[in-house]
């Protein structure tokens, strides 16, 4: 049930510093992740990192950037700061992001609305595989889903979690599992961590 044969899902590769860029902005949403390739590269890199208040021991993570990385309390706070930052940017920037899939494609959307395109953005998955599920019936986002079937927080429908990922919505699609036979809801299995 996990592999539903959907080929359109994004594939990720480790972040690689692109020496063709003149300035580099590295967004790290998972504080355990260390983009090692950036430490060795002699590039003008600015790093943003999410450091939750309750995090322990992350202060020692070496990350590139003059004056150290800029710290954020949550991925949301980082996302909110990105659009104003990119509005000031000039051609020559490369943007790199590592974090959960729902974070990555929100970054991608913000970057594309700022005019960036393929060749200027790199995304790498890190951390939990828990899914953000978009209910196709009531359009509610259900965050952090780890099961094959989930009850929608908006309309209460039992949603089957498809492998169909929307880059635009940065979410997996959830469709009513008992649409044909109301009430026939198979048991949910833990599928994503």
């Amino acid at each position, binding site marked *: 049930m996990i592999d539903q044969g959907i080929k359109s899902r994004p594939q990720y590769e480790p972040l690689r510093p692109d020496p*063709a860029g*003149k*300035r580099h902005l590295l967004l790290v949403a998972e504080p355990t992740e260390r983009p090692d390739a950036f430490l060795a590269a002699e590039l003008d890199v600015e790093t943003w990192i999410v450091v939750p208040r309750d995090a322990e021991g992350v202060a020692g993570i070496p990350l590139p950037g003059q004056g150290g990385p800029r710290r954020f309390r949550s991925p949301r706070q980082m996302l909110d700061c990105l659009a104003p930052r990119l509005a000031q940017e*000039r*051609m020559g*920037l490369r943007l790199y992001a590592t974090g959960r899939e729902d974070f990555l494609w929100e970054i991608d959307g913000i970057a594309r609305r*700022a*005019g960036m395109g393929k*060749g200027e953005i790199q995304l790498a998955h890190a951390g939990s595989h828990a899914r953000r599920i978009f209910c196709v019936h009531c359009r509610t986002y259900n965050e952090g889903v780890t099961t094959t079937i989930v009850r929608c927080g908006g309309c209460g429908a039992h949603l089957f979690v498809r492998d169909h990922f929307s880059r635009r919505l940065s979410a997996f699609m959830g469709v009513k599992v008992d649409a044909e036979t109301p009430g026939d809801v198979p048991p949910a299995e833990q599928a994503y961590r």
Partner: protein
Amino acid sequence: MIITGSLPARVAGIDSISPTLKRFRFEPDGPAEFPTAAPGAHVLVTLRGPERVWKNAYSLVTPPEERGHYAIIVRRVEPSRGGSHFLHDVLRSGDRVELSAPASLFPIASLARKHILIGGGIGITPFLSYLPVLKARGAVFELHQFCAISEAETFRGLLGTDDPRVHVHGTGGRPVFEPILADQPLGTHVYTCGPEGLMRAVAETAKGLGWPANAVHQESFAGAAGGRPFIVHLARSGQTILVEESQTLLEALEGAGIEAPCLCRGGACGVCLLPVLDGEPEHRDHVLSEQERAEGKIIATCLSRAKSDRLTLDY
């Protein structure tokens, strides 16, 4: 979808813009209107001279929605392979010509946030159809036209002098693009049309400033330069045709009455590619990969020639 078949037309007017530039206006020869064109589109103009036929690609300079007439601007070049001389010296108002349906290999990037257009000399022509579209869309753009000092007034006349976004640079030396391309906002795209050297310099400057390749667009109307004559043998039909010094392989095929495939006639689109069975091609196109060039199994007939005396095509 690309419309096939030709558009019958008549020369409706010829204006002299400068000693070497003329504008040709074509109207439909019949009741039908011309199809609308995309900004940056070109047409192939078939010219029937007394001894040979040319099919040359020219950018439309009319606004894309204009259906009542098309216009092109042509420079009389020295040395010419004959097409521009025929247009300038022989073609008269009222003459019949055949036009292809307009095709665009040089579209405006719809997702760009800002557009920088850089023309060199007569390479300004595709941008003349960009301008009304960019203005109507309220797009952010700059146009920089580079030309010889002696021609600056001519191009100012074509482009107008009232729009502060339009700049004509009359220059004696090698133009420098860094001041134009440095410090541009994210999402800027640059478009160039003009001599190879100018387009290469723009592309290299952009790359050096960290621009990604997909933000750099070129219109390649590489003039076919001619070269050593050679013989082409068509394996399927058994025909043997001489490709003369001032003729392209494609023109030689057309001269023999063969409807060979083509679209841009500038080595950019790849429509004219034909398989090579024997002989060594001299590649001059922008389409084939390094590996395809090295293998020599395929040739872009609109520009490329032969290193060997004889070339056999599977056609």
